[in-house]
């Protein structure tokens, strides 16, 4: 190995680590697709019943449209909590508590959260 390559070695490793971290922090395209499938499934998330979602046919208009989610929920964990049990913040909410009532599994809620967060 030449001298430049030796010095490049650790830098390249550091760069590779950074890229790896960034990639694992973002949901993969497959995961987003899986989350969308759960959200649109009438027997699962069934989100279109009440919410307008881009690409969803004949949405209901009971809840707010799901758009610009990152600006409305800068903290993704708060979005997940809202999906898990919307009545925690608003006792009058009529949104079914997806987590508290085990309508979706924890893994499904993770996937749906990532998908909704991407809208």
């Amino acid at each position: 190995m030449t001298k430049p390559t030796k010095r490049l070695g650790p830098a390249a490793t550091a760069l590779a680590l950074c890229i790896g971290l960034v990639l694992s922090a973002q949901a993969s395209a497959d995961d987003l697709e899986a989350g969308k499938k759960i959200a649109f499934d009438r027997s699962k998330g069934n989100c279109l019943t009440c919410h307008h979602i881009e690409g969803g046919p004949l949405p209901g208009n009971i809840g707010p449209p799901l758009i610009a989610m990152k600006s409305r929920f800068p903290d993704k964990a708060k979005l997940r909590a809202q999906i898990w049990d919307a009545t925690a913040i608003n006792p009058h909410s009529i949104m079914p508590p997806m987590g508290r009532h085990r309508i979706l599994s924890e893994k499904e809620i993770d996937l749906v959260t990532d998908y909704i967060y991407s809208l």
Partner: protein
Amino acid sequence: MKKILTLLLSAGLMTTAMQAVSSPQEDLEKFRLYYEQRFPGIQLDDFGNGPYALDANKRMQWESMEEFPPYEEYVDKGREIWETPFKNGKSFASCFGEDPSKVRVKYPRWDSKTQQVVTLEGDINKCLKDNGEKPFGWKKGKIAHLGAFLGYEARGQKINVVIPDDPKALEAYEEGKHFYYAKRGQLNLACADCHVQYPGQRVRGQMLSTGLGQTTHFPVFRAKWEKASPDGDGMGTLHRRYGGCNKQVRARPFKAQSRQYRNLEFFHTYMSNGLEINAPGYRE
């Protein structure tokens, strides 16, 4: 001393427990006012038309259905059931009186002898049993056809559920009211969630109706039931819809004509006192 204190305390607690927070009349006034303020400009009786009162497009679709209403055939079937004598020579008129137009408006009613709410369907089947005939099913078929005829004959009459000055009757009303407002099922929804909080909004493509006027048009011809029926009979009773709604929120439904559904009907119909009967209705 201790005995007297205990007696006074328990009497006080009992009184508190039996005292409703508001009277049915107060509830009714608030209920009506809420919808009138929420949907200004709609005539009181028009609330009995559900979503068709709230949306111009839906109203157009409904008016075209009303030109040749699919429930007409079942009103005729109901008339035939009313007029056909039982094997013992008697008929429904023997139980209900000669005039079919005077029947529907009496229900639901509080029966002080049996201390429970009695529905039209309940007395129809009681009449059959008392005369040695096989009772009808509670949710569809003949009971809905006869109900359609009796409802049609009573069109235009104002609903007038009476809650007598009887603590048991008031208790039944309160139980029905509690049912309407209580969340249930895996989906955690109360009747009031959709029909008090969000009428006029849409669940997918379906518009939610108001709680006001919700029972005036039963039994109802429902297009969804028509599709599910092998002979296209879309007629169904109020308790059929109660069960369906409970199932839709993933709650275990009660049996048709159970105490829970009869008390719910008692509260539910009382909330439409003063509105005209417009049965049978057509719904999607």
